[in-house]
């Protein structure tokens, strides 16, 4: 299955539903080591992404992701708004104006998203952020794509890797974002942004399965 306009739209739709279904959990994670708004932020942001997609009626998968990113930046606020917003926008731009792409292009788009987040936020692997879920996921996706594997398989592997990355944030001490203010007390909790990244990648796996 190729990644086209319909699939891209289905991805954002599924991501929004997944985040809304798990809004309370995301908020709870953020309350423990942040300020307790990550669930609301992501729900608001992905709703705005859907609204913007509906308004813009994009005709390529790249445009779908750019529209999603713009919607997220415009309405989310917080750290996750600019970070996820730039990520989707840069992923969309990486897809160019192709009507449909295969695994290698989608893998490159996901890598562009990761780079956007790193550039904007200045964080790296191990800082206990969404990067700790996204970076291994991108690597897993690209490994399968490089072997000629289909998008479905790559996306499933990415979601699994994100989940492991999420679990691996538990023993980390946060060095970026609000959780860093807690110092050693940030240890022992999942990072909320890594949790939402995992949900979003699981949604990709589901709509491409």
């Amino acid at each position, binding site marked *: 299955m190729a990644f086209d306009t319909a699939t891209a739209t289905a991805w954002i739709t599924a991501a929004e539903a997944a985040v809304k279904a798990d809004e309370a959990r995301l*908020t709870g994670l953020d*309350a423990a*080591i*942040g*300020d*307790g*708004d990550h669930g*609301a*932020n992501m729900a*608001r942001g992905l709703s705005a992404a859907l609204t913007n997609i509906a308004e813009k009626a994009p005709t390529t998968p790249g445009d779908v992701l750019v529209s999603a990113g713009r919607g997220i*930046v*415009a*309405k*989310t*606020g*917080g*750290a*996750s*708004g*600019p*970070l996820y917003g730039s990520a989707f926008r840069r992923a969309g731009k990486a897809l160019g104006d192709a009507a449909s792409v295969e695994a290698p292009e989608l893998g490159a788009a996901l890598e562009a998203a990761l780079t956007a987040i790193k550039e*904007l*936020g200045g964080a790296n692997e191990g800082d206990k952020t969404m990067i700790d879920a996204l970076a291994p996921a991108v690597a897993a996706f690209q490994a399968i794509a490089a072997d000629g594997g289909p998008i479905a398989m790559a996306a499933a592997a990415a979601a699994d890797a994100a989940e492991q990355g999420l679990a691996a944030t538990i023993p980390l001490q946060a*060095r*970026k*974002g*609000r959780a*860093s*203010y*807690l*110092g050693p*007390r940030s240890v022992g909790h999942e990072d909320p942004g890594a949790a939402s990244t995992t949900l979003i990648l699981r949604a990709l796996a589901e709509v491409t399965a």
Partner: protein
Amino acid sequence: MKKLINSPDSVIADALRGMAAAHPSLAVDLENRVVSRAGGATQGKVGLVSGGGSGHEPLHGGYVGYGMLDAAAPGEVYTSPVPDQILAATKAADGGAGVLHIVKNYTGDVLNFRMAAELADDDDIRVVSVVTNDDAAVEDSTYTAGRRGVGGTVFVEKIAGAAAEEGADLDTVAGIATHVNEVTRSFAIALHAGTVPAAGKPGFDLADDEVELGVGIHGEPGRERGSMAPVHDLVGYSLDVIHADRPLSGDLLVMLNGQGGTPLIELYGAFAEAAAWIEGHGARVARSLVGNYITSLDQQGFSISVLALDDDLLRLWDAPVATPALRWGR
């Protein structure tokens, strides 16, 4: 949770309607969520914009007016505003002499203000940003997000605002704002967490004999949990931390700030302890504020912010100001 609201979703919109109705000196743009001076930007004056999550009232909307901010952009509760909104505030503040963004150091605030500054640049408005990070509770390091901007932000807004009103240019105003931030330190202790309307329960739970030491302004836990103690000890602990970070001496501006849910009678009691501590260490309270100036909804607790005054800062602090929450001299 019982809150004086219509619904968690309408809290900001309702409060902005209330500010508009209460303060004819303010123009409140309900659509863009921008609070600015009723008369519009002052031509030729550097504009001052601040913003951040809501829940810290009177910060920032309550500091819009003569001698302080030109515009404020309030986000959702504890969530930084979005770039378009900050851009709208920047335009409302722009009198042709450039605009200063006063940004508290949180990843979300920093990123959204940075994006807004880029958008303003597209519109040919020159923006300089000053990031406040006066919280002595957080260890500073270039490998981390660094310190939080907290109570010192009120000092920055007042003093930079006075400089702008005097006619200083953008770089000068930004320099003063940076300096104020550098000579200010804050520390906060919470007794009982506040409740975010959308969350519906307090941000953390404390037993009757516990306090959170070194909290920020977003209802988050502090750097460690401590034992409840007489206010004398809690204030002493706070000033010890501040003093260790930046020794206190000479004439000081001291703010004993409530977090929203602590009665004023207790804040005065805490200020008595602060003043005694400071005198006891050979420094002097030259100016002070006691009350709720930068809050965390209904959180119980206090913060202390201390600024080392010099003649210029004193003059700018004493300069007239006329905002809903801070007013003297006119």
